């Protein structure tokens, strides 16, 4: 019986194994990498909000400190989304007739809260606490990016666990002085390696083992 397949098929068969593995591996890589894309994480995707609130204007142009609105960032897990009253503190006088702010004024009149869309939305099984990060020298812009340059709010990071844990493994790289916490323009100085170590000591930053324990974020 003549050979069914040409000798060269052997090579082809071997090659197909390799190609098969590559395709399978590539597929897996695709899934993993796809999950990291901004399409999935919604990074850099400004969310539509009921009021076209501009952080760029309020933070960048007006120079309002983050804590004026996000009042509980230093004391509680949640930084706090400002109540309508906070808006009205200024906007009962400024732009008091602007059509953009009608929703705010309506909320104030009717007592119905404004329904904002969440931008930084962690999964419910991750328990993030703003206050401990802020108190231990992690600045706003480290996670939230240059908010002062964002007309509409978007996240600049994936909020994936790998992103969280990168810092928890080596917090020194991002630590800053308390005075710089809300400083949007802060960039790590050249001697951050030194400085970070010093600050970690000053802030009593917990060991890497504690910071990367599951129980630190999951309950």
């Amino acid at each position, binding site marked *: 019986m003549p050979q069914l397949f040409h000798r060269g098929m052997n090579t082809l068969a071997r090659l197909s194994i390799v190609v098969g593995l590559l395709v399978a591996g590539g597929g897996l890589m695709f899934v993993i990498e796809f999950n990291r894309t901004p399409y*999935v994480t919604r990074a850099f995707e400004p969310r539509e909000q009921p009021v076209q609130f501009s952080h760029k204007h309020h933070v960048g142009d007006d120079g309002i400190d983050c804590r004026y609105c996000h009042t509980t960032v230093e004391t*509680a897990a949640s930084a706090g989304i400002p109540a309508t009253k906070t808006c009205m503190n200024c906007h009962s006088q400024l732009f008091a007739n602007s059509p953009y702010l009608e929703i705010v004024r309506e909320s104030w009149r009717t007592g119905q809260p404004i329904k904002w869309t969440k931008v930084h939305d962690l999964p419910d099984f991750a328990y993030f606490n703003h206050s401990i990060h802020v108190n231990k020298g992690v600045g706003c812009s480290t996670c939230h990016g240059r908010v002062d340059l964002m007309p509409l709010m978007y996240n600049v990071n994936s909020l994936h666990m790998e992103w969280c844990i990168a810092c928890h493994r080596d917090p020194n790289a991002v630590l800053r002085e308390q005075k710089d916490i809300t400083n949007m323009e802060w960039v790590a100085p050249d001697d951050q390696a030194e400085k970070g170590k010093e600050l970690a000591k000053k802030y009593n930053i917990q060991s890497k083992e504690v910071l990367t324990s599951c129980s630190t974020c999951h309950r």
Partner: protein
Amino acid sequence: MSHRDHHHDLEPVREAISRKTGREFWRSLEELAGTDRFRDFLHREFPALNAPETDPSMLDPTGRRNFMKLMGASLALAGLTACTRQPLEHVVPYVKTPDGLVPGKPQFYATAMTLNGVASGLLVESHEGRPTKIEGNPDHPGSLGATDIFAQASVLGLYDPDRSQSALKLGDARTWGDFLNELTAWLEAQRPKRGKGLRILTENSTSPTLASLMAKVKTDFPESKWVTYDPNTRDGARMGAPTVGGKPANVVYKFENAEVVVSLDADFLTNGPGALRYARDFMSKRRLTSGANEMNRLFVAESTLTTTGSKADHRLPVKASEIDALARSIANAVGVSVAAGGNLSGDAAKFAKAVADDLQAHAGKCIVLAGEHQPAAVHAIANAINAKLGGTAVAYTAPIEINPIDQTAALTELIGEMNAGQVECIIIVGGNPVYNAPNLPGQKDSFLNALKKVPNRAHMSLYNDETSAQCQWHLAEAHYLESWGDARAFDGTVSIIQPLIQPLYQGRSPLELVAAVAGIQGKTALDLLKDYWKTQPQMAANFDQAWKQALHDGVVAGTKLAEESAQLDAAKLAAPAPAKGGQYEIVFRLDPHVHDGRFANNGWLQECPKPINKITWDNFAIINGTTAAKLNLAPKDEPYHATAKMINITVDGKELAMPAWIQAGHPNDTVTVYLGYGRERAGNVGNKTGFNTYLLKTTAGAIAEAKLAAGEGTYQLASTQEHFAIDVSGIDSKAFIPEENDLSDRHIVRAGNLEEYKKNPKAVHHGAHLPPDPKMTIYHPEEHPYNGYAWGMAIDMNACIGCNACIVSCQSENNIAVVGKELVTRGRQMHWLRIDTYFRGDMANPEVYFQPMMCQHCENAPCEVVCPVNATVHDAEGLNTQVYNRCVGTRYCANNCPYKVRRFNYLLYGDWETPSLKNVRNPEVTIRSRGVMEKCTFCVQRIMNGKIEAEKQNRRVADGEIQTACQTVCPTEAIIFGDINDKESRVAKLKAEPRNYEVLADLNTRPRASYLAAIKNPNATLGGGASSHGGSSESGGHGNEGQKSGEAKHG
């Protein structure tokens, strides 16, 4: 699987015990008899999985092909879900943030919950205005920070979707205003008659404001009558009490001053006014810590095995009707002369003599208590002995109740008046008398039939219940967490009950209803309260300030009632109760969990295993083995099913068939039944659970003559007593479990007596295996130094009274699901914490030991090494963490856990749909779905929040700053949690006590939870009592790893 229906014969059981030397522990009669069922529970974590025929969900005829198809589909779906984007979520801030509220941070408000009218102070945790968790108020004398099981579960009651939501007239929704209009018409008709046809029926109450409103009603309608009735009437206590100013005194016990405590059928550690405080004070005299080595002594004579009896140094099982004779014998022996009672049996006479001797030896430091269901004479005798020997341990105050009457007599009179047509209008404020009123002797439905003769009937209650259905008007009552009120604690201290939330439905406060009857309309309960307290000396001077202070503290300063001298009427001590004629008697008791039936619709309480017998979702007739043998009743034994035989109980001509439960330690010829089951209109949870024993109860009292007979058929009870058994002590291992000698006595429970403890504090450990050398580990200890915090727990078994408050607290704190009766029988209850109950010694009167068992947080955790996906791992502070999102549900970890503390969520047990139930969940804890293993986390959410607060202030967590949910509620402080690296912490000090030991430490698990052995303080003349494990005074345990326990057999 064998399906032998062998009856378990009690003879071999007795023999099994007699072969023992009185030192082994056992869990249940099934265990002693070595039944298949027990062995299955012992050998497999999930024995129920092998009985597919019993579970409809397991009947799915999924063939291999189908399985592959489904698997393929689910794999594909799993792949796809990874590609979906998170849906957009919204965040809704306040318009105006309330003062002091920080979103995400819980607030605590002081309030109080009443049970039988008596207040227990609470601090309620509120998340953005949503109460989620109950804690005790440390400033409240009746709580001192602890709570009972009812308070813990009450937050679920608040969100119960079955609660009544509006006023109803003949079943149609009406407004409160509609009712007021009709009420006005009713009252106007009564006014010319000076209220002759008006009756107000309330529950027991201590509310001063309600009293003032009732006084106004009495002024407006001088001939109206006010009847107070609670199923737990406490008539005996009230009528047998000495008098203060002509009224029955409120008796206040001071256990901190008592050396000898005698309970005459009184379950004072978990029942009655002040129980939480009494438990704390009682245990304060039994703490063998920091070098203390003296204990008080507790004698208990009781008609069923209770938690109090379990803590007794000497316990006498005795028929409830014979308590009277026993009390008289003791009284006469200590020189309180009373009429002699009936003859005592030999054991009882010996007991009475020992009690009398001990009382006299400790004159001035004694307390004698009588059970709430005991007749007035027994209470009078107890009070007389206290008057002579109690000294500073017993005090009397004016009554705390606002209507201290003989409730049964008043109710009987009311029924008579209603039958005679003298009642034209009845307002029933709370309570459920149609369901729970006793019958007049020889009658059925006495109250119901009489009520129907009243033309105008209104009933206010939390549920549209049995009584509501019989009244033209039903009025929705506001839950205590959503309404204003006031109430006194056991010592008279007043708490203002402040709401945590606006009424969820259209509920109203009972105060508003009574005010309407008193002609006060348009005032809220808050107005009424303020009106009253403005006139009171404690607040009058600077009302606004005093009011705020009272709300903040949870108590009104200066309202504790003064101690007064009380006079006991000698006539009360007179004639002994006539001897009961029949052979058998029945005792009606409040259910330990659903109380008088009012909590029947609470899933947390229904599913919590009752103390001692660990039965859930049911009531049953408790008898002992001898009585069962006489009646030819013994439970039929089938694998996985505690099938009980039915028993027919006939009382006063009425018959009820109930499942019989054979309980060691129960007296002969008597049956104990719990009230509160068999509800028809309790709600979706409580309907059709158990049996309505009120049908048998008459106005003659809680103790009655009964006829017993074997009934037809069997009934399945869901007892968890044999679930998750971690030992086989008590079984002759060679006979039952060949080749597993190591499982024989594992010294899981260690107990001893005080004399031995004084000689050698470590005697309790004798014979136990020592943990192996710390170097024996496959881990690298240097990699896990635990330099920072090292969380640990110490549990004092001497202090644990088995009250179950910790179980419900854990359930509330950690969002633990309720699974229902059917699944409990299959061993699928989700409780992270259980109270293991062990018995020792004679079946007729065993010693009982409680061991709270939860994840032990082993440093060498056996669960961790077998998890294929690293879903259970250690953290840097020694917590054994469970990562729900990694868990794929292999259940290897549960299989490998020697403590059997891991719970698998087989089905989606939690109710994720009902909107109101979403509010009860703790937002600090992940809500788990099915297919995921879960277990005790040592309340990691509390640890993390405590650490974060401390770290923000750059300090270490202070001792006691972080308390687990089980710890905070414990009335006896039996559970202490903390940092064991801090040698000054309470937990570290307890772990340094000689009684401290770790369960199954010989497995080299190095648990972070440890236990302190239980010590009893028996009277030398009575003998008996606990003897140390091993009985020798030789110190310490023996052997390092490798030694066989066969050598550990010491006499």
